[in-house]
């Protein structure tokens, strides 16, 4: 995205983490500071989030190519998106910042004409999204989530919804260069609570906050 330090028209949206060095990007307040710590938490709320609902077996699954409990990258509308099978008959499409409308339009085109009912909702401003990355990330989650996130249970590309620090959260394992990394998606009003709980759980491992990572590492 080109408007890292630009100003967007309209109100500024805030994510789930307090920025150390505030900058704006596509109408969002983001953290411009990049941490080099081994364990980092980043606010990814500005990423586009689109919820797709339909029959458990049917158009959305065959078009998006992801089944419940799995996550994979696919070309959708505005670019490369991460399609998460977040539940039976439910998909969460996470796309680059500012691509929600294009993503909704692109999926609408591909499922139109199918007989079954499919609903599409842009959740971008209704949900919080954060990313926890580091070799100790599973240890952090072990303190606040009853589901075992080690390799044998949740390998890279695995997804599930459960209680994380008592918050209903979609957890998606999306490793970065072989390092465990988890996307955590929850209602936006509980995002700051969840981020504070994760920072508290990660304190003993030296957790730090960092700038938005996005779906692909940015230079």
């Amino acid at each position, binding site marked *: 995205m080109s408007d890292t330090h630009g100003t967007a028209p309209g109100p500024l949206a805030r994510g789930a983490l307090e920025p150390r060095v505030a900058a704006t990007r596509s109408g969002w307040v983001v953290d411009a500071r990049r941490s080099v710590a081994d364990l980092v938490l980043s606010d990814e709320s500005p990423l586009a989030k689109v919820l797709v609902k339909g029959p458990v077996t049917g158009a959305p699954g065959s078009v998006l190519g992801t089944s*419940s409990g799995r996550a994979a990258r696919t070309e959708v509308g505005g670019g490369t998106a991460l399609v998460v099978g977040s*539940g039976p008959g439910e998909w969460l499409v996470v796309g680059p910042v500012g691509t929600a409308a294009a993503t909704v339009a692109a999926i609408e085109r591909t499922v139109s004409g199918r007989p079954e009912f499919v609903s599409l909702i842009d959740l971008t401003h209704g949900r919080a999204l954060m990313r926890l990355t580091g070799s100790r990330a599973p240890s952090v989650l072990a303190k606040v989530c*009853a589901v075992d996130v080690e390799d044998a249970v949740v390998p890279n590309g695995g997804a*599930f*919804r*459960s209680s994380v620090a008592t918050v*209903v959260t979609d957890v998606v394992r999306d490793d970065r260069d072989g390092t465990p990394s988890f996307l955590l998606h929850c209602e936006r009003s509980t995002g700051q609570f969840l981020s504070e709980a994760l920072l508290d759980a990660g304190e003993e491992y030296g957790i730090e906050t960092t700038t938005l990572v996005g779906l692909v590492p940015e230079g």
Partner: protein
Amino acid sequence: MMLLPCPWCGPRNATEFRYGGATGARPDPVSATPQQWREYLYTQTNPLGWSREGWYHRAGCRRYITVERHTGTNEVRSALDTATEDG
């Protein structure tokens, strides 16, 4: 802690679910008397033993499941998706 084996999500803490109560045959709304409705809605047998009950997995798949549970031991002998009856 009590575990429920969700057919979609696997074993999960019972606190992720909302208890829906014992399930039984629903009276015919056309012919049922107020007394029969009252018994259906509010009168539970509350057995010490096997009970067939509905649970809603609110913090997981958000599906309704039907569980056969022993109320004395919390042993679960079956858990099916209520809508599809798949396990």
